């Protein structure tokens, strides 16, 4: 009975998600411009894609942003959660303050940090007016470090949520374990790393998925903060897809780029899923 009830949902999922994905992949081998046309051009779109400087820069940026964002979100999120877990006073207040940026959209976050990082109004100006006249901090106007300027904004917005999830995970740890480790005289930091973190595995996987999906779809933050500039130094793949499909009226090129994004995600997800779910069956 339950299976019959699920049929409409299964069909929708198959048609919309799988069907849409396959359609996109198939049409990436055509010469479609504004409207989809089944005019086959083989691998031309992919050849052009990988010869496009902007795409290469986008990929590099996504790698830097992704790796840094993953590491820093987890580390900062966990450290903040561990600090809040020390039964401090005003915990609610701190938790609210740190989680608050998450209530803002990426567009607002981007605009706020555009002002904070603006050399004439923001951090640089404040430090200079305090007397350090040669101080320089203008990541959004420097091609080499602009992606880190975006990273700062992304972390500011996203770490709060990671912290709350981690905190929930920490609260889920049985107090008896802490007591036992204290009786055995194990230092707190060792308890965290060797006992508590392995026990929090499900929480870590949830946060990992959240962070990873945030990384692949990073788009609005860049649009709001730098619109890809200076030059093309902060372009990201999602923006390339949007621009080619909707502004440049070249659907097939956009499809090719999004297929590459899908491929990249698949390369990460499939071995992981295999390890995660495949091993369980063998147990």
């Amino acid at each position, binding site marked *: 009975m339950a299976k019959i009830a699920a049929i409409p949902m299964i069909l929708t999922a198959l048609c919309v998600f799988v069907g849409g994905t396959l359609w996109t992949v198939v049409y990436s081998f055509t010469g479609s*411009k*504004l*409207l989809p046309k089944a005019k086959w051009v083989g691998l031309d779109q992919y050849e*052009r894609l990988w010869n*496009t*400087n*902007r795409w290469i820069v986008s990929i590099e940026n996504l790698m830097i942003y992704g790796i840094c964002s993953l590491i820093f979100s987890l580390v900062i999120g966990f450290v903040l959660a561990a600090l809040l877990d020390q039964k401090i006073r005003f915990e609610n207040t701190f938790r609210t303050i740190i989680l608050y940026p998450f209530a803002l959209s990426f567009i607002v976050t981007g605009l706020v940090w555009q002002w904070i990082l603006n050399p*004439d109004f923001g951090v640089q100006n404040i430090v200079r007016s305090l007397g350090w006249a040669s101080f320089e901090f203008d990541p959004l*106007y420097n*091609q080499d470090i602009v992606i880190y300027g975006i990273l700062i904004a992304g972390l500011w917005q996203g770490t709060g949520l990671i912290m709350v999830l981690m905190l929930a995970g920490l609260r889920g740890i049985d107090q008896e374990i802490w007591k036992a480790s204290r009786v055995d005289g194990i230092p707190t930091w060792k308890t965290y790393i060797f006992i508590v973190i392995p026990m929090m595995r499900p929480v870590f996987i949830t946060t990992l998925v959240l962070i990873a999906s945030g990384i692949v779809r990073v788009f609005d933050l860049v649009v709001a903060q730098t*619109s*890809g*500039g*200076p*030059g*093309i*130094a902060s372009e990201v793949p999602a923006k390339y897809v949007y*621009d*080619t499909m*909707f*502004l*440049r*009226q*070249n659907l097939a*090129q956009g499809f090719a780029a999004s297929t590459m994004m899908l491929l990249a995600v698949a390369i990460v997800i499939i071995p992981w899923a295999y390890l995660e779910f495949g091993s369980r069956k063998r147990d």
Partner: protein
Amino acid sequence: MKSLKSLLCGTAMCAAGAAHAVDLEVTHWWTSGGEAAAVAEFAKAFNEMTEHNWVDGAIAGSGGVARPIMISRITGGDPMGATQFNHGRQAEELVEAGLMLDLTDVAEAEGWRDIVHPVSLLDSCTIDGRVYCVPVNIHSWQWIWLSHAAFEQAGVPVPSNWDEFVAAAPKLRDSGIVPLAMGNQPWQASGAFGVITIALAGPEAWAAVSVDKDAEVAAGPVYAKVFEAAAAAREMRQGSNVQDWNQATNLVITGKAGGQIMGDWAQGEFQVANQMAGTDYSCLPGLGVNEIISTGGDAFYFPKQSDPEVEAAQKELASLMLSKEVQVAFNLKKGSLPVRGDVDLAAANDCMKKGLAILAQGNILPDANQTLSPDTLGQIEDLMTEFWADSSISAADAQERYADIIANAD
């Protein structure tokens, strides 16, 4: 019961009586002060001179934001009554897919071919001999705007062409003035490059590359000169850390920058700041080298509808947009040039008159939007954005990549 019956009759009669008046939704991206005032002229004329109603569908943002929305509405089966596009190839595929109303009968009845000047504007509305859009105005990129105050402060006379401007640049720099103002939005860089090209390479070489897509010319010595000049201009713009074009124009207005390469829409900014052409600022068409203007601008397309009454209203609006009075009223507010040569624009200011004179002499070129596809223009824009922002890319490298794009252009 009786009252309900009469009410129903009443509404039915109302519906019958109103059958001829059509609410026509018109989408466009004219939302700044002057633009909104100009489009209000269209709305006024349409409401007063016909029995139909203009339903304003302004989309905030720029063309880049608005066009995807318009296209997805048309392809998604929710077409509006009329919509703005730029002159050229932006709606080409929509026309080929049969989604636009054929206006040929109106065009032939009113003799558009005789009244539209330059006639190339009508040509870019024509596909396979059928007319699909109404050109409404001409905007030209080919201008440089110079601040008299800045040159006075630097102690050099206001230049009358690009070479003098380049020669004056070091003096401007010495007195703390940015020689060339330019915002960081991508289209500004590629637009300025187009202006420099037409001025320095001349219209023939430009046409060979941008119309005939001749990659050899693009890789050749004439274009090498253009890329050298662009590299020099890249140095001159150092220090103008603004984003929007009107912020860059403001640097010129306040004398913090010597000049700006920008289309004739910049004129509105000078007007709002109460500056006088000739005494406070100068404008040089074609950078003072090749006095020529490109005929970019806007056109209206009418997506196909199933209702014949709506179709009739669309055609009425089409002919109204080209009529003399509406052309004058609209273009004076917009600061653009009219698309017909037989109207009187006595109220135009000096710079606009310069433009009109060049137009009358016929020194015109098509806009790049008319000759290259949005895809190719996008690739050029990416290259220019990269080139203007990063001084480590040499002129020769950029030229090579440019020639490559032209070789693959469609």
